[in-house]
C-alpha cells in the first residue's frame, strides 16, 4: 500500500515557522516526541497540530533563534495584571 498524509486541522496552531529564518535542518522534526512535525520543502509541516503537547522541545533544539514560535491556544493564555501600588496593603 502507499502511505498518505495530510495535515489534520486543529482549532489551535501551536507551532509556526518564520520562513525567512528557518534553514530547513529538520532538527525539530527529529526531536518532537509526539511526531507532530514532518519534513517539508522549505520549512517543516505541522501535520498533526492537535497532537502537540506544548513541551517546547522543537524550539529548544532549533539552531536559529526566532525560526519557530510556540503559541498556547487562546483559551489557555493565563492572565497577568500590572501591580497596582494602591492595593499593596
Amino acid at each position, binding site marked *: 500500500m502507499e502511505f498518505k498524509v495530510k495535515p489534520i486541522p*486543529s482549532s489551535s496552531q501551536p507551532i509556526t515557522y518564520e520562513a525567512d529564518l528557518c534553514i530547513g535542518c529538520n532538527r525539530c522534526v527529529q526531536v518532537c516526541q509526539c511526531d507532530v512535525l514532518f519534513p517539508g520543502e522549505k520549512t517543516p509541516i505541522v501535520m*498533526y497540530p492537535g497532537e502537540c503537547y506544548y513541551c517546547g522541545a522543537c524550539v529548544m533544539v532549533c539552531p536559529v533563534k526566532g525560526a519557530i514560535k510556540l503559541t498556547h491556544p487562546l483559551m489557555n493564555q493565563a492572565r*497577568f495584571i500590572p501591580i497596582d501600588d494602591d492595593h499593596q496593603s
Partner: protein
Amino acid sequence: MSTYQWPYPNELNTIEHVSCDVLVLGGGLSGCFAAIAARKQGLDVAIVEKGAIEKSGSAGTGFDHWESACTNPCSKVTPEEIAYAYIDEQSHFSNGIFHYITCREGYDRLLDIERMGGKIRDTEDDFQGARFRDEDTKLMFAYDYQNRFTLRVWGTTFKPALYRELKRLGVKIYEHVEATALLKENKHGAGAIGMQIHTGKLYVFQAKATVLAMSRPARVWLFNADQPGLCEFRPFQSIGSGHAMGWRSGLELTMMEKSVRAEFSAAGRSFPPYGTGNNHNTWYAATMVDARGVEIPYVDRDGNELTDYYARYYPSQGQKFFLKGGVIDEPKYAYRGPETLPFDELIKRGYQLPFYADLSRMPELERKVIWGMMVGQEAKTNIPIYHYYQTRGFDPTQHRLQSYGNGWQSASFLDQERQFFGAPGGLMHDWDLKTNIDGIYACGDALFGSDCAGSACATGHYAGRKAASYAKTVLMPGLSSEAIDKEKQRLYAPLEHENGLNWKELNMAISKAMQNYCGASKCDALLLEGKRLLKEYEKIIVPQLSCVNPHELMRTHEVLDILTVSQLVIEACLARRTSVKALNFERTDVHSDAPQQHIVISQQDGMIHTREVDLDYYGDLKENYEKHNADDRGESNGI
C-alpha cells in the same frame, strides 16, 4: 487541505531481528538509567523509545525538583525516615521498595548525571547568599530549608546528558520505535516486538532480560479529539503501553483500581502546567494576594499565622520535617508543612477572587529562583512558560499572575473525570524490581505507586543492574514465530481497511464509557455494564479501525492499549470488594471495615487471577535492601 507524499521509506512487512543481553523499553529518565547501569556491567544493551531520547519522556524538556535525596551531604534526614513517612502518609497503599530505593540511591544518580554533564548545583553563584543554598557544596534546596532533602536542579540539562552517555557507552538505540508486545519463551521473558513509527518496519528484539520503563496509563477518562495533545498532564504519547503489554503477557499489577478526580487537562479545564499563579510545587512558596491585593496568609499545621516570611520553609515547632512534592496533596498532620489558609476559609474571611501570585513581594533570590530557575527548568516550562510569557510582557516584579480554581491544577474537575495521579497503580514486583515473570523487570512509572523524576532515575538504575545480573546467568531464549506472526497481524490490521473508524472516535468512546461506568462511585452492576461495553468495542469496533500511514497506525495502537488498560481497570475495580479511602476507591454496594490488602491482578488466556498481598510485603526496608544489595548498593562510582 493538500495531501503530501509520505516522506519516509515504506518498510511494511520488513522484520529486523535484534538480539541483546538486556532490552530496555522506554527511553525516559528511568529507561536511560536502566540501559546505562546494564551496559556498565559490560553487557550488550538495546533501548527502544517511541520519540527521540534527547527530549522524550515526562522530563524530556526538564524538571526542577529532585525529591528524597536523603543521602546528600546537607540532608538532616535518613532514607528510613523519609521512606517510612511516605508509606505512612499513603496509609500503606504505598510502594515501600520504590520509596526506599529513591531515598537510598537517588542522590547517587544525581552525581552520575553531574559527571555526564548535567547541572545539579549553582556553579555560577547566581544564588549566592540565598537561604536555600549551601555555600560549600552549592547545592540548592526546596520546601524544607531545615532538613534539605529536596533539591532544586537544572533538569533541562539531564536528558541531553543521558542521551550522550548512552551513545558514548555504545548502547544500541532504537528511536521512533514503539514497543508493542512482550515476548515469552517457556514462561520466561524473551524480548519484545516494536514498530518503526515512520516506516512501519517491525523489530523483533530477542533478549535475556527485559526492563519495562514506560509511562503510567493516560487518556482513559480524559480525551479531547480537537487537542488530544493537551488532554493529559504527561506527554501525549505516554499512555501506559507497558501496563497494557504486561497485562496481555500475564504480568501482575496492583492498585489499578486507584484513580483520582482529574487534576490536570489543559485541553479542558486547566491551563498550561506551572503557567498560572499558585504556590504549589514549582511555585512553592510564592506570595499570593487576592483581588484587592491583600496578602493571603501562610499558616503552620496548627493554623497559626506565619508572620515571618521564611517560616514557610521550616517545620512547625515539635515537627522534625514536613513533606511536599509530586504525590503529596493534603498530607496527614504529622507531615503537613506550611500552607496558605484553606480556600474555603479564605472565602469565609472575605478574601476576594480572583487570587494572584505576586512574586514582587518576595525576597529577591526567592523570586528569582521561582521565576527564572524553577520555572524554566521544570518540564514544559522553559519555552512555553518562561520564554513565552516574557514575550507576552510578563515581568514578575511588575505583574501578578492569575490563579484559577483553588490549587495548582488551576481547575476544578467533575468527579467522573479521573486520572492516574498521586502514586497510581502499576506492575507488582519484588526486591529486585522483577515482575512475576522471570527475566522481566520494571522501573519508574511502570511500577505501582510511582512518584517523581528522582525515583525514575533511582529505580531505573536499580532495575538495570538487577536485569544485567540475571542476564549473566541465562542463555539466550528462543523465540516463537507464532507469537511474532500474531503480533504482526494485530499491528498491521488497521492498514488493511479503508474508510473505517478513526482512532480518535474509539478513544472518545472509551473515555466516555469509563466516565459513565467507572467514575467516582462504583458498584458491580455499573462496572459489569462497563465491562460488557468495552468488550463490544473490542469485538465489534476494533476490527473496523482504519488508518492510512504509520503515524496514525501508532496512534491506533495506542488506543488499543488504552482499551486494554481500561478493561484492566474495570477488572481491578471488580476485584476490590469494599471502599478504600487511600485508593480513592468508593463502592456503593459493599461496605466492610475488614483490614485491606493489596489485590494483585493478572490474566491468562482471558481468565482473571487475583491474589491478596500484605501491604507491607517488602518487610524491613533497610534490612531487606541490604540483603538484596550486598554486592552493589548503586553508589555513584564514575559512570
